[in-house]
């Protein structure tokens, strides 16, 4: 099945709804954390998922690693349905890199033990083979020589080195999909680029797919091939990362880009439309576009019609009724 040239990861109209335990919360209505999301990722490709807190990006990560099961829809990785009991192998196929390399490594485990852990869990190899595999994974993560790191402890390493250990652990089993949840946001700025390059190189070399979850749109161009912007459980804009950054069409994507501070401001701070802020925490509308209550470009039609994703260019789709007229022109 690994010769299959199709996408390695597929989300097909996936929904994940949570029913509040208390009917007092949110009026007892289910919270649609993921509300009809579809995408596919090819081998060697990185899909960025961007959005604010509450956009559903963390639920999406949990669905990918099988921590949550979809309410509806199907998720497959390398042809295997994620979360299905009969397909235990899917657990090996998906590995995760977390945000905080200080919390994600057990301080009492040596680096060797940490990187070998997935091999132990899945009963792979003899002790000698596991050692060998751990040292090799550390070398691939540019911690050289790998053997020299096996007996060391996390506290002896810098934040960037720890994240490399976490990446070695996540890739030691040759997964098909790597899910990286804000993997550089806790690291010093001066070491971030090196971690992004490492992740990208491993994705290409090991022919994996990667989902890169972030709230920071300024780094996505340096790691992602495609980008999906999520708002309240749905993808509102998706396409090649440069297209989205340079010619965004959805008003929400535009707001996210405009809010990023820039190094050489020529004018004073960019003012935010009051409407964008005012309705930030409100409950999503029953019908119409989910972003309409915060959208400065919303017209009457937006209150009634939930926009379907439409292409504005090859591979670039936007869920906005006014996408064609609002799309910016790349400089």
């Amino acid at each position, binding site marked *: 099945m690994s010769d299959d040239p199709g996408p390695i990861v597929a989300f097909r109209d996936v929904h994940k709804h949570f029913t509040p335990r208390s009917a007092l919360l949110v009026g007892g209505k289910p919270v649609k954390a993921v509300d009809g999301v579809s995408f596919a990722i090819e081998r060697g490709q990185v899909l960025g998922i961007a959005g604010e807190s509450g956009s559903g990006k963390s639920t999406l990560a949990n669905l990918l690693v099988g921590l949550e099961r979809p309410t509806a829809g199907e998720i497959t990785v390398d042809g295997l349905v994620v979360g299905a009991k009969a397909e235990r192998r899917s657990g090996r196929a998906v590995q995760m890199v977390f945000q905080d390399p200080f919390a994600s490594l057990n301080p009492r485990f040596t680096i060797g033990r940490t990187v070998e852990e997935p091999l132990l869990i899945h009963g792979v190899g003899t002790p000698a083979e596991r050692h060998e595999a751990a040292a090799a994974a550390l070398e691939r993560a540019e911690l050289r020589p790998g053997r020299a790191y096996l007996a060391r402890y996390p506290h002896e390493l*810098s934040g960037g*080195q720890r994240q490399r250990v976490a990446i070695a652990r996540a890739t030691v089993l040759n997964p098909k999909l790597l899910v990286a949840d804000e993997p550089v946001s806790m690291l*010093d700025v*001066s070491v971030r680029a090196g971690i992004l390059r490492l992740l990208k190189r491993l994705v290409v070399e090991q022919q994996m797919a990667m989902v890169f979850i972030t709230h920071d749109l300024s780094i996505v161009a*340096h790691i992602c091939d495609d980008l999906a912007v999520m708002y309240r459980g749905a993808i509102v804009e998706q396409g090649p990362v440069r297209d989205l950054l340079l010619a965004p069409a959805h008003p929400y994507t535009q707001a*996210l*880009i405009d809010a*990023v501070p*820039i190094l050489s401001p020529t004018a004073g701070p960019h003012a935010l439309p009051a409407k964008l802020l005012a309705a930030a925490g409100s409950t999503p509308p029953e019908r119409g576009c989910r972003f309409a209550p915060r959208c400065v470009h919303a017209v009457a039609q937006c209150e009634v019609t939930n926009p379907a994703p439409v292409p504005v260019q090859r591979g670039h789709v936007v869920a906005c009724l006014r996408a064609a007229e609002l799309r910016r022109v790349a400089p």
Partner: protein
Amino acid sequence: MGALLEFEDISIVYRTQEGEVFAVEGVKLALAAGQALGLVGESGCGKSTLALAALGLLPRSARITHGAIRFDGDLISGKGESELRPLRWRRMAYVPQSALASLVPVHSIRRQFRDTAAAHGMRATEADARAVELLRQVELDRAVLDRFPHELSGGMRQRAIIALALLFRPPMLVADEPTTGLDVIVQRQIVNLLSDLRRSEGLSLIFISHDIGVVAELCDRVAVLYAGEVMEEGPTTEVLSRPAHPYTMGLAQSFPDIRAPDRPLVSIAGHTPRLTEPTRACPFASRCPFVREVCRTTKPARVRVAQGRSIACHFASDSEAMREAAARPGLWDAGQAA
């Protein structure tokens, strides 16, 4: 115009179980009244220690081993708690990183205003009136007064903290990573709010951040710190657009620009030195692509490179050539894992 806050050759040492940590070493900085000074740098560069020292809030394990801190001409380093208390809130206030921990979780916002007011001699009725006025200023509904911290979003909480800090109309705010961890639209709202307050209230601001983009938008001047020392200081736009110190050059290039997705990002090979012993070398020597022998043996003094601009580098006169070479991304990544 005299300086409102001055760090005069200040050194701060922490005593830890593993021995002493030399967190701040010979820092000279001044904040003029009405100005905003950004302190930027990576973890362990000493920026938060300087903030706490300015407020007289250093933990017991920290000791000022050299130099002095002056606020409005008065020596505040070495002062006891009883002398510092009247200054805090009334003359200088602190805005920490947005966290539930910075508000009392079991008290309503109104109660937080009243308690702070009472502790520093303001009546409850006056505190209530001032709270309403301040909430309007930070664009929060007055209904927030009867809410508890956990009922507010991160951005609302941070605006409530800023409103509380302004209770006594202090001339200076010290904000330590006040937007870190917030969503980008909320961060923009906080940056705009602080910028408005600077204009309308003439607030002076010490703004600490690892995010040089936020500092670029908010601060007139910036000090770039590395391993407890000031590497470069000057007007923000000049320092960030034409850095003179190699560390600033690397830092600026490792910071992504959303408007220029094709500009390569660099990472600076190596990592920050352990600060467990005082060093005679330039602290950046082990990671500097322009390092020469003298850098490993002698600490460079901070020298003026232009009007109101200084750097701590032996090769200050070569900064033009270094900046040209530094634009080549390959210079920074020696293939060594950091």
